[in-house]
């Protein structure tokens, strides 16, 4: 039978969606048609269009304006420096977590890795071998700490690759085990950096920017470029978005995922090193619960737990949102008990709004 060639295409649901001028699916469905029509032209403005697609930044703006109005101390250059330094710890790990989560994996062991790296960074300086090195003794210490982070990441990645066990489970185990290693290594004690040059680093500023903030911003830029511009970065989306397609296209998924685990290990270690410069010390309980805050920040930034979606700009927004909330609530003297409630509620609220506005078309089925 010959297919009729007079047939016209008719596919209301599946037609190519216009890329530029549509509101997010959820908005189109929720808003009255007239309102939607009125709002749509606003999307001609590139800034507004960008904000609609990055809702976390809308939230960052709201938080920013809110605290600027209600707190006397929030809107100040010095405070912004503080916020950047404070977010750098969670922020650096979040960069790595974005890669791992876009890959469709997760890493719960970052808090423990951070603690182990910090312990190495502080302890190795005082090894007798480097006693005559002066301030240079910091260099091998930091290098070793970063290597430890990369190594632990590689171990996680290797196990995920070779055993095929879900990353959630592998890194949940590692979260306990690496914390155990921290206690083995430190013997429960805090380490203290004898060399004040080490802790002075955290007070360093380059122009208006504290060194720690600068490192964080540079790393953010680097990972943003890595994820959006390089072959490895694009493959990260491919592996997370459709693993089978990636395999068929000849991407070596195992080593690829391992590299991303090494990257997050590196950032967890770097974060640990920078944190230890702020303290001039390393404590064995450092970084507890950080994995949960990092995941929260990354998810707020629009990265999907299922993989394939997310970017560094969103993650930066998520990290800043949490950082500003904490900072602002400190400045406003919100009682500690309420901080838990506010942060938890906001997380759920943002998730809810994201679901309403950015949901994908399910054709209105009641499932």
């Amino acid at each position: 039978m010959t297919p009729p060639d007079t047939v016209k295409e008719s596919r209301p649901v599946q037609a190519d969606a216009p890329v530029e001028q549509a509101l997010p699916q959820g908005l189109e469905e929720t808003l009255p048609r007239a309102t939607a029509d009125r709002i749509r032209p606003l999307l001609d403005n590139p800034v507004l269009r960008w904000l609609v697609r990055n809702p976390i930044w809308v939230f960052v703006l709201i938080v920013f304006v809110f605290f600027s109005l209600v707190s006397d101390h929030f809107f100040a250059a010095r405070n912004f420096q503080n916020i950047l330094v404070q977010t750098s710890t969670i922020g650096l790990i979040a960069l790595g977590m974005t890669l791992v989560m876009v890959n469709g994996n997760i890493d719960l062991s970052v808090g423990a890795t951070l603690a182990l790296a910090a312990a190495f960074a502080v302890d190795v300086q005082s090894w007798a071998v480097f006693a005559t090195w002066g301030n240079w003794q910091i260099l091998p210490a930091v290098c070793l700490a970063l290597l430890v982070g990369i190594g632990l990441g590689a171990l996680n990645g290797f196990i995920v690759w070779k055993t095929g066990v879900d990353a959630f489970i592998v890194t949940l185990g590692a979260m306990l085990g690496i914390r155990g290693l921290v206690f083995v290594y430190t013997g429960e004690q805090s380490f203290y950096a004898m060399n004040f040059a080490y802790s002075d680093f955290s007070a360093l500023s380059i122009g208006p920017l504290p060194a720690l903030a600068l490192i964080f911003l540079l790393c953010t830029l680097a990972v943003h470029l890595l994820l959006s511009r390089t072959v490895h970065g694009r493959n990260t989306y491919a592996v997370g978005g459709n693993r089978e397609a990636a395999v068929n296209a000849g991407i070596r998924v195992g080593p690829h995922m391992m590299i991303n685990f090494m990257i997050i290990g590196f950032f967890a270690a770097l974060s640990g090193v920078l944190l230890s410069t702020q303290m001039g010390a390393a404590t064995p309980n450092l970084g507890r619960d950080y994995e949960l805050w990092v995941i929260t920040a990354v998810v707020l930034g629009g990265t999907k737990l299922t993989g394939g979606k997310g970017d560094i700009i969103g993650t930066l927004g998520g990290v800043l949102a949490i950082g500003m909330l904490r900072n602002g609530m400190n400045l406003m003297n919100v009682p500690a008990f309420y901080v838990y409630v506010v942060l938890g509620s906001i997380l759920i609220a943002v998730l809810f709004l994201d679901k309403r506005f950015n949901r994908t078309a399910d054709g209105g089925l009641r499932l």
Partner: protein
Amino acid sequence: MTDMIERPAREPALRLEGIVKTFPGVRALDGVDFEVMPGEVHALLGENGAGKSTLMKVLAGMYQPDGGTIVIAGREVRMATPLEAKRQGIVLIHQELSLVPEMSAAENIYLGELPRKSFGRVDWKTLYARSDAILERLRCSFRGDATVAHLSIANQQMVEIARALTVDARVVVFDEPTASLTDAEKVVLFDIINDLKAQGVGIVYISHRMDEIFTLSDRITVLRDGQYRGTLDTAATNEDEVTRLMIGRSLDLSRDTTPARLGDTVLEVRDLTCAPHFEDVAFSVRAGEVVGFYGLVGAGRTAIAEALFGLRSCESGMIRVAGKEVTIDSPEQAIALGISLVPENRKEQGLVLQMSCRDNMTLPQVQDLTAGPFVSSGAEIAIFDQYRDRLAIKTPSWRQPVGVLSGGNQQKIVIGKWLSMQPRVLIVDEPTRGIDVGSKSEIHGLLRELAAQGYAVIVISSEMPEVLRVSDRIVAMYHGRITREFSADEVTEDALVQAISGIGVELVS
């Protein structure tokens, strides 16, 4: 029918000899031979589970054969990875779309082989230039920077095909390429295949649709149970011979002409509207008849079924079941009213793959099959046995996870699940999609039989032969509206095609 192309007396582009592949407990391929000449369309046929997909995965480097040789352009090769196969010029276009939705078309086309600059950066300029050139060659309306998630299914298929053109392909394998295409899109696809063929590329074409195979192919190779059954010249054979080779017997493909004994009107729908899917739909179904719904994908047929099954809320209209006006807000209510739906997507909507055959079959009524507070295993097994025998489901035991069964048997489990509910109205959506000829014919027979037993049956299908074969009445849909209703006696193919393409219909929008 395509003109006969004289087969060039050259070296085959690809030759597989004596390929053996075993999985634990199964010999999936048992000494299979297969060859493709340059510029030839060679169809590969076989029932589900005959080994077509395994053979193609061996060809694409995704499986390593346990025995046999692969010869490409006269040289014996080993292909350990899909990438190596691609470098040898073997490209597989997958049945299930193998794209990354959040990435651009260009990135998908060059997935795994993005052009690089220094420091591992992507060379976007080269990427877009190359991919745009390919898309243009395929006469695509979109460009390389379009995000795949925003493209229609047909255009996504085009991206898949574009992938094949990135390399100097020797052999391109199409695995069920038309499953999700409209007829218009099929025409474009066939043009492309003919283009490739003219360029001397060897084409392997896998499909269950006989009409396509006879339109396109030069030769046909048939597999059965992992074994090679023979190769036929398309011009010198017919559907009967091919079918016999596939299933080992011949099939009666004619329509059951027993006149329907019609009962009362069981289901009546009036002015039902559910924008944007369908508007002002009205029809009725009587006990003992099969009503076929025919139309293009997206014409609103499936949406009507979903609305009747309580999965969609409708803005206006009236539904009457057995004479009583009802509202249906959930599948539970639909089931209580005696409506059953065999959904179009078996794996996603029909079955819980890791559950046993029995548990799947009794899922909608498990709360009623109880002894005290407990599920009565005996009652469940009784139901399973009854429908296993009635539908001739092939499975070693009720404990078997349903995911390991063949497509046809899976579909029968879904049908059995809904028959066991003793429904008044049975809605079947695309009952034979992706199912081999043998099972297909059995299912058609079953639908007729059900009607004869007094069920009211609605069959939704995109395949005209199917609709013609099983229906007592045919409802044609176009763009969310019913354009015409035919009785089985008066319907002609031409009229049906016109009715579903909106010809002669005034659309108010």
